[in-house]
């Protein structure tokens, strides 16, 4: 087991705890940077897609995993980001300006959604965000002058200073770059007072308030930042699908985002990436499975969402901390090899005592 002896206060705020982490994350960075040399077009596209999901997941993780507010409506922010970006591009706004503008627009919408959401928690918030998502989808479907309604709208190619980034390799690097920036921003955010306030609110609203945290402002900030990250993913998503139509963003998309965050592991940024990998690989695995398994299994309609659902159920029952949680346990087992105790992560159950009196 590794003990880091701290000799300096600056070590407390370092991004990496020790040189081992620097080495492994450096290796990972090298691998993803050099990936276009080995991977073909198809897999590059899939990886770029995975990065986009991860960016959206960072947004949702800030809200669900760190602030403890559940949103079933994040597909709306993805859609708003995508449509705002595409509309700005068609109005002649350059790509480098349009992405931040669309992101900022999403942040504003997120802040506005956060305002009424302050009065709710848990299930009420989830259903309210779901309602918001349905209403946003309706607006997108019917505001034809801007969104093209059912016919959808074509998204212009991304061009930066005259360079067309639509090819698989440039687009891969674009997504990778924005994902790295998002992860870095989220990491820094979580080390800042704002991020600490998020976590305090998640763990106990009462104790957070008594430490002087402004609950209303913190929750609204969380919503705005979460919407901004998801909207940023939306701008890239619009280029990825190339043609925006209302049926690209549904309740299913919101649920997939939430599933990604839960399966990856709530309360960890690594979990977002694991979840995105899971979400990106599962369709491939199913496609391979279809060739191997008997035909009648492969022809079941709705097989993919069904498998998603089954995996989600299994994770929630057997590993509520997600893939990241499992990894942490495995690492701890190796760290403390002969002395690992199963009870380390035993969950504390709390039994219901409701405030409802009728």
């Amino acid at each position, binding site marked *: 087991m590794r003990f880091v002896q701290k000799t300096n206060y600056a070590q407390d705020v370092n991004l990496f705890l020790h040189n081992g982490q620097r080495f492994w994350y450096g290796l990972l960075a090298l691998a993803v940077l050099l990936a276009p040399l080995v991977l073909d077009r198809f897999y590059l596209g899939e990886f770029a897609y995975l990065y986009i999901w991860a960016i959206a997941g960072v947004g949702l993780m800030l809200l669900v995993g760190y602030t403890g507010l559940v949103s079933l409506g994040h597909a709306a922010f993805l859609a708003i980001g995508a449509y705002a970006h595409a509309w700005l591009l068609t109005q002649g706004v350059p790509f480098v300006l349009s992405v931040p503008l669309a992101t900022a627009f999403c942040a504003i919408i997120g802040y506005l959604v956060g305002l009424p959401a302050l*009065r709710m928690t848990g299930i009420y918030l989830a*259903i309210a965000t779901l309602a918001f998502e349905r*209403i946003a989808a309706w607006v997108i479907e019917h505001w034809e002058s801007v969104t093209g309604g059912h016919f959808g709208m074509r998204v212009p190619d991304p061009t930066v200073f005259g360079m067309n980034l639509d090819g698989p390799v440039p687009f891969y690097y674009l997504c990778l770059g924005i994902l790295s920036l998002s992860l870095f921003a989220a990491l820094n955010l979580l080390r800042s007072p704002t991020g600490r306030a998020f976590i305090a609110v998640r763990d106990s609203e009462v104790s957070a308030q008594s430490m002087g945290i402004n609950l209303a402002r913190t929750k609204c900030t969380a919503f705005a930042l979460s919407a901004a990250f998801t909207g940023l993913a939306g701008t890239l998503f619009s280029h990825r699908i190339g043609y925006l139509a209302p049926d690209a963003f549904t309740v299913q998309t919101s649920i997939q985002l939430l599933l990604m965050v839960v399966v990856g592991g709530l309360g960890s940024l690594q979990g977002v990436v694991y979840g995105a990998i899971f979400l990106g690989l599962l369709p491939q695995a199913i496609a391979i499975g279809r060739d191997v398994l008997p035909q009648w299994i492969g022809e079941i309609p709705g097989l993919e969402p069904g498998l998603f*659902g089954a995996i989600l*159920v299994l994770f*929630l029952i057997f590993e509520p901390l997600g893939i990241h949680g499992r990894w942490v346990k495995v690492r701890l087992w190796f760290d403390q090899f002969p002395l690992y105790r199963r009870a380390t992560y035993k969950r504390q159950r709390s039994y*219901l*005592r409701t*405030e409802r009196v009728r």
Partner: protein
Amino acid sequence: MPRVFACRTRRAHTILETLQLLIIGISQGCVYGLIALGFVLIYKATEMVNFAQGDMMMLGAFIAFSLIEAFDWLFAFVPVLGALPGASFAFAFLGTLLVMAAFGVVLERGVLRPMIGEPPFAVLMLTIGLGFVLRAVAGAIWGNQPRALDSPFAGGTFDLGGLIIGYENVAIVVGTALLCGALYLFFRFTRIGIAMQAASQNQLAAFYVGIPVKRVFALVWAISAAIAAAAGILVAPVNLIDPLMGFIGIKAFAAAIVGGFGSLPGAIVGGLLIGIAEPFVALHLPPGLSEVSAFVILLAMLVVRPQGIFPSLQQKKV
């Protein structure tokens, strides 16, 4: 929605049209109310939120579909029953309620019992996942094409001086009223019903005074699944049955919250409110708005009166 009635030259027509829309709204609202009843029942007793309630309704409708076919085949050999028109439907109805109640118990025992004591969010995600699984299972067994239930209520209409009321609408309203009455009596007067109320207020205390909390929970799930099945069978003549029909569960959810989550009469009232609003919005406001009217009502309610029409929360913040 029925633009046919949009003839507004005479006042009588307008009244008739309004009544007609009201009837459509009430019967649709009863369906929302029934599904919402299932939500509320489970929430009241176990403080869990079952997002798969709509999908349980879908499953119930499909099981009824298969049972009707089975009984049709069986009764062809039975002289007396074969001659009765609604016999196989009646048997299938009861059979479906039993099958779904058993399914509810299995679900509670297998999937939800391990989740007792977990945060509500985890249970919510779990039931969302469950909904996906149920949809895939139904798709695998019955296929994705919509099917019509062979119901004795389908097609027939009463004509009350120009006012046309379908049998199926009457069946929905009567069925809802009967179920609500039965539930009221059950919770008010039976021993186990009162035990359920106790378990819903304080699990640990109920356990200490000797209420079999686990069995009570299993029973709640059984009742709630049976109600979902009843809703599915009643709505089947109006909407066709297909694996995605459970999505109206989301609107029923809105209904439950509008009514005040945790209140049984609230569920029905909320369902009626949303059900009645829909046809009127469809007629008088821009097209497509009726699909989201339930959510607009929900958001408005959450902003203005978050505890719902019949609040059941005393101190707890919603």
